[in-house]
Protein backbone atom coordinates (compact mmCIF):
# COMPACT_ATOMS: atom_id res chain seq x y z
CA UNK A 1 0.00 0.00 0.00
CA UNK A 2 2.68 2.49 1.03
CA UNK A 3 4.86 1.32 -1.87
CA UNK A 4 1.94 2.06 -4.21
CA UNK A 5 1.62 5.55 -2.73
CA UNK A 6 5.34 6.12 -3.25
CA UNK A 7 5.13 4.89 -6.84
CA UNK A 8 2.18 7.25 -7.47
CA UNK A 9 4.29 10.08 -6.05
CA UNK A 10 7.09 8.92 -8.35
CA UNK A 11 4.75 9.29 -11.33
CA UNK A 12 4.04 12.86 -10.22
CA UNK A 13 7.78 13.60 -10.13
CA UNK A 14 8.00 12.11 -13.64
CA UNK A 15 5.39 14.60 -14.83
CA UNK A 16 7.30 17.46 -13.17
CA UNK A 17 10.53 16.22 -14.76
CA UNK A 18 8.96 16.15 -18.21
CA UNK A 19 8.53 19.92 -18.58
CA UNK A 20 9.76 23.22 -17.17
CA UNK A 21 13.26 24.56 -16.53
CA UNK A 22 16.22 22.20 -16.60
CA UNK A 23 16.97 22.71 -12.88
CA UNK A 24 13.38 21.88 -12.02
CA UNK A 25 13.76 18.67 -13.99
CA UNK A 26 16.96 17.72 -12.20
CA UNK A 27 15.41 18.34 -8.78
CA UNK A 28 12.43 16.18 -9.75
CA UNK A 29 14.87 13.48 -10.89
CA UNK A 30 16.67 13.60 -7.52
CA UNK A 31 13.38 13.29 -5.65
CA UNK A 32 12.28 10.46 -7.93
CA UNK A 33 15.47 8.54 -7.14
CA UNK A 34 14.73 8.69 -3.43
CA UNK A 35 11.11 7.60 -3.93
CA UNK A 36 12.14 4.67 -6.14
CA UNK A 37 14.69 3.48 -3.58
CA UNK A 38 12.14 3.62 -0.76
CA UNK A 39 9.55 1.81 -2.88
CA UNK A 40 12.12 -0.91 -3.65
CA UNK A 41 12.86 -1.31 0.06
CA UNK A 42 9.18 -1.71 0.84
CA UNK A 43 8.57 -4.11 -2.07
CA UNK A 44 11.56 -6.21 -0.96
CA UNK A 45 10.10 -6.45 2.53
CA UNK A 46 6.57 -7.03 1.25
CA UNK A 47 7.55 -9.79 -1.20
CA UNK A 48 10.05 -11.25 1.27
CA UNK A 49 13.00 -11.07 -1.17
CA UNK A 50 16.44 -10.50 0.33
CA UNK A 51 18.08 -9.73 -2.99
CA UNK A 52 15.84 -6.70 -3.62
CA UNK A 53 17.34 -5.07 -0.53
CA UNK A 54 20.73 -5.19 -2.27
CA UNK A 55 19.11 -3.50 -5.26
CA UNK A 56 17.84 -0.68 -3.04
CA UNK A 57 21.30 -0.20 -1.48
CA UNK A 58 22.92 -0.02 -4.92
CA UNK A 59 20.22 2.31 -6.24
CA UNK A 60 20.70 4.68 -3.29
CA UNK A 61 24.40 5.03 -4.12
CA UNK A 62 23.94 5.16 -7.88
CA UNK A 63 21.11 7.71 -7.85
CA UNK A 64 23.35 10.01 -5.80
CA UNK A 65 26.26 9.54 -8.20
CA UNK A 66 24.12 10.03 -11.32
CA UNK A 67 22.47 13.17 -9.92
CA UNK A 68 25.87 14.58 -9.04
CA UNK A 69 27.10 13.96 -12.59
CA UNK A 70 24.01 15.70 -14.01
CA UNK A 71 24.53 18.66 -11.70
CA UNK A 72 28.20 19.02 -12.62
CA UNK A 73 27.33 18.94 -16.31
CA UNK A 74 24.67 21.59 -15.78
CA UNK A 75 27.16 23.74 -13.93
CA UNK A 76 29.96 23.53 -16.46
CA UNK A 77 28.81 22.62 -19.93
CA UNK A 78 25.06 22.64 -20.47
Amino acid at each position, binding site marked *: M*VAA*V*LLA*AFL*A*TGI*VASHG*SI*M*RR*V*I*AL*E*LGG*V*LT*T*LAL*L*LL*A*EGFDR*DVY*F*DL*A*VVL*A*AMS*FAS*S*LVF*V*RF*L*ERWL
Partner: protein
Amino acid sequence: MTPQQVVIDVLLGLAAVVAVGSVVGLIAARDDLDRLHYLAPVSVVSPVLVAAAVVAREAFDSRAIKALLVAAAFVVLNPVLSQATARAQRVRERGDWRPTPDERK
Protein backbone atom coordinates in the same frame (compact mmCIF):
# COMPACT_ATOMS: atom_id res chain seq x y z
CA MET B 1 -3.66 -6.23 15.21
CA THR B 2 -0.57 -6.47 17.42
CA PRO B 3 1.17 -3.41 18.92
CA GLN B 4 4.16 -4.19 16.68
CA GLN B 5 1.94 -3.98 13.58
CA VAL B 6 0.46 -0.69 14.80
CA VAL B 7 3.96 0.78 15.20
CA ILE B 8 4.95 -0.41 11.71
CA ASP B 9 1.78 1.03 10.16
CA VAL B 10 2.27 4.38 11.89
CA LEU B 11 5.92 4.61 10.77
CA LEU B 12 5.09 3.71 7.17
CA GLY B 13 2.09 6.05 7.15
CA LEU B 14 4.26 8.93 8.32
CA ALA B 15 6.88 8.08 5.70
CA ALA B 16 4.22 8.14 2.97
CA VAL B 17 2.77 11.45 4.23
CA VAL B 18 6.22 13.06 4.24
CA ALA B 19 6.97 11.75 0.74
CA VAL B 20 3.65 12.93 -0.70
CA GLY B 21 4.04 16.31 1.05
CA SER B 22 7.46 16.73 -0.51
CA VAL B 23 6.12 15.97 -3.97
CA VAL B 24 3.28 18.47 -3.47
CA GLY B 25 5.87 21.03 -2.36
CA LEU B 26 7.95 20.25 -5.44
CA ILE B 27 4.95 20.96 -7.65
CA ALA B 28 3.75 24.06 -5.78
CA ALA B 29 7.07 25.82 -5.04
CA ARG B 30 7.72 29.22 -6.65
CA ASP B 31 11.25 28.72 -7.99
CA ASP B 32 13.98 26.11 -8.26
CA LEU B 33 15.79 27.00 -5.03
CA ASP B 34 12.48 26.72 -3.14
CA ARG B 35 11.93 23.38 -4.83
CA LEU B 36 15.30 22.17 -3.59
CA HIS B 37 14.15 22.55 0.02
CA TYR B 38 11.48 19.89 -0.49
CA LEU B 39 14.17 17.33 -1.27
CA ALA B 40 15.31 17.24 2.37
CA PRO B 41 12.22 15.77 4.13
CA VAL B 42 11.82 12.91 1.69
CA SER B 43 15.58 12.20 1.74
CA VAL B 44 16.09 12.37 5.49
CA VAL B 45 12.81 11.66 7.31
CA SER B 46 11.17 9.07 5.06
CA PRO B 47 14.18 6.68 4.75
CA VAL B 48 14.69 6.77 8.52
CA LEU B 49 11.01 5.99 9.13
CA VAL B 50 11.03 3.15 6.57
CA ALA B 51 14.23 1.72 8.08
CA ALA B 52 12.69 1.96 11.56
CA ALA B 53 9.63 0.07 10.29
CA VAL B 54 11.85 -2.68 8.82
CA VAL B 55 13.79 -2.90 12.10
CA ALA B 56 10.50 -3.07 14.04
CA ARG B 57 9.40 -5.98 11.86
CA GLU B 58 12.65 -7.90 11.42
CA ALA B 59 14.82 -6.90 14.42
CA PHE B 60 18.51 -6.48 13.53
CA ASP B 61 18.94 -9.03 10.75
CA SER B 62 20.60 -8.46 7.37
CA ARG B 63 17.48 -6.81 5.90
CA ALA B 64 17.25 -4.29 8.71
CA ILE B 65 20.95 -3.51 8.37
CA LYS B 66 20.55 -2.90 4.64
CA ALA B 67 17.52 -0.66 5.25
CA LEU B 68 19.53 1.28 7.83
CA LEU B 69 22.40 1.51 5.33
CA VAL B 70 20.06 3.04 2.74
CA ALA B 71 18.73 5.52 5.32
CA ALA B 72 22.25 6.45 6.42
CA ALA B 73 23.33 6.91 2.79
CA PHE B 74 20.46 9.33 2.14
CA VAL B 75 21.01 11.23 5.39
CA VAL B 76 24.72 11.69 4.63
CA LEU B 77 24.58 12.21 0.85
CA ASN B 78 21.47 14.38 0.47
CA PRO B 79 23.08 17.57 1.89
CA VAL B 80 25.99 17.10 -0.53
CA LEU B 81 23.60 16.76 -3.46
CA SER B 82 21.46 19.72 -2.37
CA GLN B 83 24.53 21.93 -2.01
CA ALA B 84 25.87 20.85 -5.42
CA THR B 85 22.48 21.49 -7.06
CA ALA B 86 22.13 24.94 -5.46
CA ARG B 87 25.67 25.79 -6.52
CA ALA B 88 24.96 24.71 -10.10
CA GLN B 89 21.81 26.84 -10.11
CA ARG B 90 23.77 29.88 -8.93
CA VAL B 91 26.56 29.35 -11.46
CA ARG B 92 24.00 29.08 -14.25
CA GLU B 93 22.28 32.27 -13.13
CA ARG B 94 25.28 34.46 -12.28
CA GLY B 95 28.32 32.79 -13.79
CA ASP B 96 30.05 32.25 -10.43
CA TRP B 97 29.02 30.74 -7.10
CA ARG B 98 30.93 33.27 -4.98
CA PRO B 99 29.02 36.19 -3.46
CA THR B 100 29.18 39.48 -5.32
CA PRO B 101 30.53 42.62 -3.56
CA ASP B 102 26.94 43.84 -3.20
CA GLU B 103 25.95 40.62 -1.46
CA ARG B 104 28.91 40.88 0.93
CA LYS B 105 27.68 44.24 2.25
